[in-house]
């Protein structure tokens, strides 16, 4: 391979810098051209209403269906937590921001429930892995992303705060990948009729959802 112009092994275009600088030199005419651009956009936004800005926070931009905002802990029909404290979310969490303490539930069908479920929102990276890992659909993400607080300790969300926040339902849920699967597999009418233990279906026994995941993999 023979070196070409400039000593490079490949063909590199040579730019004459001084020539280009002279061509792009600011003149009176280019100043007027710039004013023209500004004025064009000014009139466009004044009369046609074509503005690129929005009146935030009164207006917001549309977000994706799968937007990953602050987490929600979902509840059963009777208002108790769906979470069974299996620690899957705490295991998968790359930021290690979930802290769970499990307790013995009085009902042996449920058996295990979280006595404490804390998420450190300052540490969370909103990756949604916890939602993917959850076998119960007990943790989902919301569309909420305003998290201004007065002091640091408020950024650690406890069960009460994760379960119910005022106005969280208005925007609908965020990232929730297991929902269609769960409805199709578990909550269809025929399977409910066959089931000898309807309470299992209603109460959403941990195994019910877990089974659906096994089938999907197989």
């Amino acid at each position, binding site marked *: 391979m023979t070196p070409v112009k400039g000593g490079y092994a490949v063909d590199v275009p040579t730019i004459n810098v001084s020539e280009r600088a002279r061509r792009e030199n600011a003149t009176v005419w280019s100043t007027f051209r710039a004013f023209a651009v500004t004025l064009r956009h000014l009139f466009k936004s004044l009369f046609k209403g074509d503005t690129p800005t929005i009146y935030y926070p009164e207006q917001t931009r549309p977000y994706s269906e799968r937007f990953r905002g602050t987490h929600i802990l979902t509840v059963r029909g009777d208002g108790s937590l769906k979470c069974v404290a299996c620690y899957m979310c705490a295991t998968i969490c790359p930021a290690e921001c979930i802290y769970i303490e499990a307790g*013995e539930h009085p009902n042996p069908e449920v058996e295990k429930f979280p006595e404490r479920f804390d998420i450190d929102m300052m540490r969370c990276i909103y990756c949604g892995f916890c939602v993917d890992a959850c076998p119960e659909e007990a943790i989902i993400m919301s569309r909420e992303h305003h998290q201004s607080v007065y002091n640091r300790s408020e950024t*650690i969300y406890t069960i009460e705060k994760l379960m119910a926040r005022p106005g969280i339902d208005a925007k609908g849920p965020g990232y929730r990948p297991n929902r269609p699967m769960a409805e199709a597999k578990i909550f269809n009418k025929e399977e409910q009729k066959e089931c000898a233990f309807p309470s299992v279906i209603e109460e959403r026994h941990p195994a019910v959802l877990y089974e659906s995941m096994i089938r999907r993999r197989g």
Partner: protein
Amino acid sequence: MPKVTINGQTYEAEKGKTIIQVADEVGVQIPRYCYHPDIGIEGSCRMCLVEVKGAPKLVPSCATPIADNMEVRTNTERVHQAVRYAMEFLLLHHPIDCPVCDQSGECWLQDYYMAHAGHDSRYPLGQKTRRKKAFNLGPLVKLDQERCILCTRCVRFTRNVTKTNEIQVFSRGHNAEIGIFEDRPLNNAYSANVVDVCPVGALTSADFRFKVRVWFLKGTPSVCAGCSTGCNNRVDHSARAQGGGIPGYTATDGKIYRTVGRRNVDVNKSWLCDEGRLSFHTLDRWPRLRHALKAGEQKPVDDLLPSIHERFESIRKQYGDNAVAALGSANNTNEALFLLKQYFGGHADFRLSNEVDLYQQRQDDLLRRLDKHANTHGALDLGLNGELGGLRGLRERAAKKEIRAMWIAFHPQLVGEDAPEIIDELRKLISALEFSVVSTTHDFEWARAASVLLPMASWAEEKGTYTNYAGRVQITSRAVMPPEDAQPLHLMMAELLQLSGRNVPRDPSAIFDAIAAQVPRYAGLNYDNIGVLGVMPVEAPQEVLR
């Protein structure tokens, strides 16, 4: 010796062994549920089926004795199919509640399902048989009948090992289930071993249940310090920080969650007694001593040791060498006691009461012994039982002003209570002394009277060797870090020896090399040849476990 060929490789094996035993020895993996080397053969799970040349059907390898020129194959398609179908039957009514099951992560059903089965259940989940869940068999064990695969390991444990027969199989056929009689709970002294032997999540420990998921734990091979038997165990402790910056949660400094039996045929087989298994809770029973205290003020340990050394030296100069002595503990490691004896020039003892006579006496006929100290034999080997006469003798000498300054190392018993008269004697001893240094693990009220109070690392926080009742030398490992300023006794002694101009190693294995060079009984031993199972230094009559 018969020759057996397993998967094309020929091995010589002892006569009378079964195929699975030979396979375990040579490292061929055969799946099993009901077979356990220490509780005998049942042959009910059908997981260990293998192909034997000449046999018309597959044979259970756990119950088939080897014969000469036997040709065994464990990896044929026929065997895989058989194991797969056995797994399908075992999992037929399994509730698949892995998210709430304490066993998941170390469950043999999970392991073998992934390795050998991988099928979809043919039984709709809603129609699976429901049974009793989470009811207490005894104070330490909970049973979930839905997860049980009827391998009867627990039944045979209570039948063959403890001979108490609390757990039985009730009903027959597809109604068969594990249970207890109404008036006889599972409360023998070894009850929690059934949790260890249970390959699935049917039996779970009431003590460990839901505390932590097992994949967060790290296992450190260690030795139980609950009594002089020195059972081999595995200390499971937190391995990684969780929960980020959430206040009140500090997993990084280490927390012991459970201990489980580690198989050592010569000492404890696979068992631990319940007291020893739960003895790690003793470390949290009283507040730990976290800082050195001198006249009620917190001081760094490294600043105090030179002043302690100077004080000992001045008393030695004034009243003679005999005026300074030490009281070790039979729960200190050999390394610590060896350096203690070196620093105090032999004016050291370790006996608190008459436990020296007890250390070989059995409490029952399985594992437990009456002496609740781990290293009495080691202290005797090192010659710590001098003319000082134990705690009582030291107290009398201190009262007569023969002894004016002392170092007292005190570990509380991990099992049971320390006798009140021992605490009383220690109290009197401290008040009779001119200068007393107490190194203890916990913040005891009686120890506050000492001139200097030093925090000491406890069991599972230091590395060292214990010598059990029979003279077997075993390594106990550091599983968690000592709290804040606490140090192992051997480090404090090495520092004092350095101050007195003698250079000694600080690494426990190097200290043990010095012991091996000086104590004839330990000649030729080092940490490498002691290993994880320990070693018996000389041939001594050893009681055989039944």
